């Protein structure tokens, strides 16, 4: 033990002029003064008292001890160690006898007897006092937890969004000590919905307050800016000034367009959501620094599309980072595998919680908050895209020809005029060429997948290669004059053409796949004029 021992003991202030009433009176004199004595852990006096000595006459002691010097200086003559179950639990300190006579053998015997009886009683009193202090501490902590919970629950959504064609489910269970998890749904313009899942480092009231601040800033900026990357960038800037030291917030922010199933998302250091689709479960990858740590952070925006039957699970650490009694972690792979075993919604959440309970065993104390949000596209929205054709081609030079014709056949029944059909031809051809050349690096064994879907107002051609998720490059527009002058490669027209042919261009993907979505509106969108003319 490196800290100094502090002894409180009853002691009678020395009064040399008082009548001799014996040592026992020293204990009953009123008022008994309470004095504290600090004894360093390496002070030999401590060892001496602990070694089972009876009443000690300080005058007879020869020890190089600061505590002994202090005791003598305050006039203490005799010390009676109180020992309970072999442990030194207190000291009885006496000044000189009031008669100014020395303590007699009988006095000392009386003091020894008194110590033998007093020690257990003092020990009991100490334990009671210690227990009372612990109860007070626990009550204070529980009060703090209640306050934190109250703050936190205040900011959790009171109801889930009602989206036609979607089933939304959410689960939140705070750990006993309350972490800083939060989730939110924000109604945005054009029927879009913002979905937030976040986690504040630290626990208790400070974390709850940071959560409340983050929640408030996010709501304002989400409505103002909409684009997820922009929203996180702005929230990060605003939080920097508000963030207490050593705290930060992880947060995944997604904007869902329920009509198309399109999801735009950006991530500030939070767990990656799991997308359950017809081919399995993939993590939607997006990275970025947590909020409130560093200024001027950028957050890339990614997109994914949830087709009917797909579901997305957003989650916090509490589940994947839970531990079994053997110290094994529940883990992200297990979580991903389970996501593939249910369609989504409450069924999935129940499965996850059931598996967690079996994994952690009975009597487990939850380590961190658990937040789960499931967005499940049920397909009952009324304007579900229908698949017109779906096929794959090998990555070979000239591979774009076949798909172009097949796409043209697939959309032949739609209200797409000749001009727009030609544009779609070019866009599909260029996109497949890019997939073969750049995504699959011309490896014939790697397929390019093409999926043609139609909804009430548009047709979409999704072209998927095996090149992994990557944003559309922000390449400058090709400069013909520079190309003619030989200062720019004569090639490099593909992406430029694609951009100019379709009404919407976006990408999605996971660690293995990269998909380009080409969308043509069936009734035109004012892109008919030639930009170059």
């Amino acid at each position, binding site marked *: 033990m490196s800290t100094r021992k502090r002894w409180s003991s009853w002691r009678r202030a020395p009064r040399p002029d008082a009548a001799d009433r014996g040592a026992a009176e020293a204990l009953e004199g009123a008022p008994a003064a309470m004095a504290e004595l600090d004894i360093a852990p390496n002070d030999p006096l401590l060892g001496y008292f602990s070694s089972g000595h009876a009443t000690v006459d300080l005058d007879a002691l020869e020890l190089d001890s600061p505590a002994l010097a202090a005791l003598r200086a305050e006039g203490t003559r005799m010390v009676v160690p109180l020992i309970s179950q072999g442990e030194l639990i207190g000291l009885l300190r006496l000044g000189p006898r009031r008669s100014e006579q020395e303590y007699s053998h009988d006095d000392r015997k009386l003091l020894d007897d008194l110590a033998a009886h007093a020690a257990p009683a003092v020990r009991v009193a100490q334990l009671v006092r210690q227990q009372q202090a612990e109860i007070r501490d626990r009550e204070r902590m529980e009060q703090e937890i209640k306050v934190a919970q109250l703050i936190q629950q205040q900011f959790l959504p009171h109801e889930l969004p009602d989206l036609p064609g979607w089933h939304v489910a959410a689960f939140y269970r705070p750990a006993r000590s309350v972490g800083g998890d939060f989730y939110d749904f924000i109604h945005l313009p054009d029927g879009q919905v913002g979905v937030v899942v976040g986690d504040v480092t630290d626990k208790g009231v400070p974390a709850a307050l940071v959560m409340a601040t983050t929640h408030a800033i996010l709501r304002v900026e989400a409505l103002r800016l909409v684009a997820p990357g922009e929203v996180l960038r702005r929230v990060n800037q605003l939080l920097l000034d508000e963030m207490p030291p050593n705290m930060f917030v992880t947060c995944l922010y997604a904007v869902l367009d329920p009509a198309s199933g399109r999801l735009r998302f950006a991530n500030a250091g939070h767990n990656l959501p799991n997308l359950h689709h017809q081919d399995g479960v993939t993590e939607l990858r997006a990275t970025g620094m947590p909020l409130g740590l560093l200024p001027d952070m950028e957050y890339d925006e990614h997109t994914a599309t949830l087709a009917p039957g797909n579901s997305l699970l957003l989650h916090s650490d509490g589940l994947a980072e839970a531990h079994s009694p053997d110290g094994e972690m529940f883990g992200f792979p297990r979580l991903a595998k389970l996501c593939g075993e249910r369609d989504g919604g409450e069924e999935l959440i129940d499965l996850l919680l059931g598996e967690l309970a079996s994994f952690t065993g009975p009597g487990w104390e939850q380590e961190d908050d658990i937040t789960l949000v499931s967005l499940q596209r049920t397909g009952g929205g009324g304007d579900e895209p229908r698949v017109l054709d779906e096929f794959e081609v090998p990555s070979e030079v000239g591979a774009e*020809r076949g798909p172009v014709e097949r796409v043209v056949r697939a959309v032949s029944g739609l209200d797409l005029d000749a*001009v727009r059909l030609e544009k779609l031809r070019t866009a599909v051809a260029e996109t497949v060429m890019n997939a073969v050349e750049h995504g699959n690096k011309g490896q014939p064994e790697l397929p390019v997948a093409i999926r043609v879907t139609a909804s009430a107002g548009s047709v979409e051609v999704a072209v998927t290669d095996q090149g992994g998720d990557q944003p559309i490059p922000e390449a400058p527009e090709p400069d*013909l004059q520079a190309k003619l002058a030989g200062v720019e490669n004569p090639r490099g027209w593909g992406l430029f053409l694609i951009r100019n042919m379709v009404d919407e261009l976006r990408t999605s993907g996971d660690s293995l796949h990269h998909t380009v979505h080409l969308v043509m509106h069936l009734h035109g969108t004012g892109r008919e004029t030639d930009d170059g003319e």
Partner: protein
Amino acid sequence: MTVSETRVSVRRRDGVAVLDIVGDIDRDADEPLQHAYDQAVAPGDASGVLLNFGKVGYINSTGIAVIVGLLARARKERLAISAYGLTEHYRHIFGITRLSDFIGIYGDEDSAVVGASPADAGGGARAARGGGE
């Protein structure tokens, strides 16, 4: 759409070398086009080069690059290039790529030959194009 080998034949009309292109224009069109261009300019008397796209079904981005290469060469040799027979779609693409700023685009061969005549040859593509619309 099947892969269609590009064939280019060269003829003369009123001093203008006409390149009749049949097939698709992609990266594989580079060689036949350059070869035809060689033939067209070899006598040294062509007042201009006219590309006939009337039998071209498909032009992709690599084909655009081939045309850019041909145009760069012609500009070095101070020969004007013009074109006709483009579908509405490819006229649009020539517009957005700004190829039509450097290549006179005409609706038919007659107006193209008139536009590409020696009197107009130095007037630049913009003037020629205006005459063809």
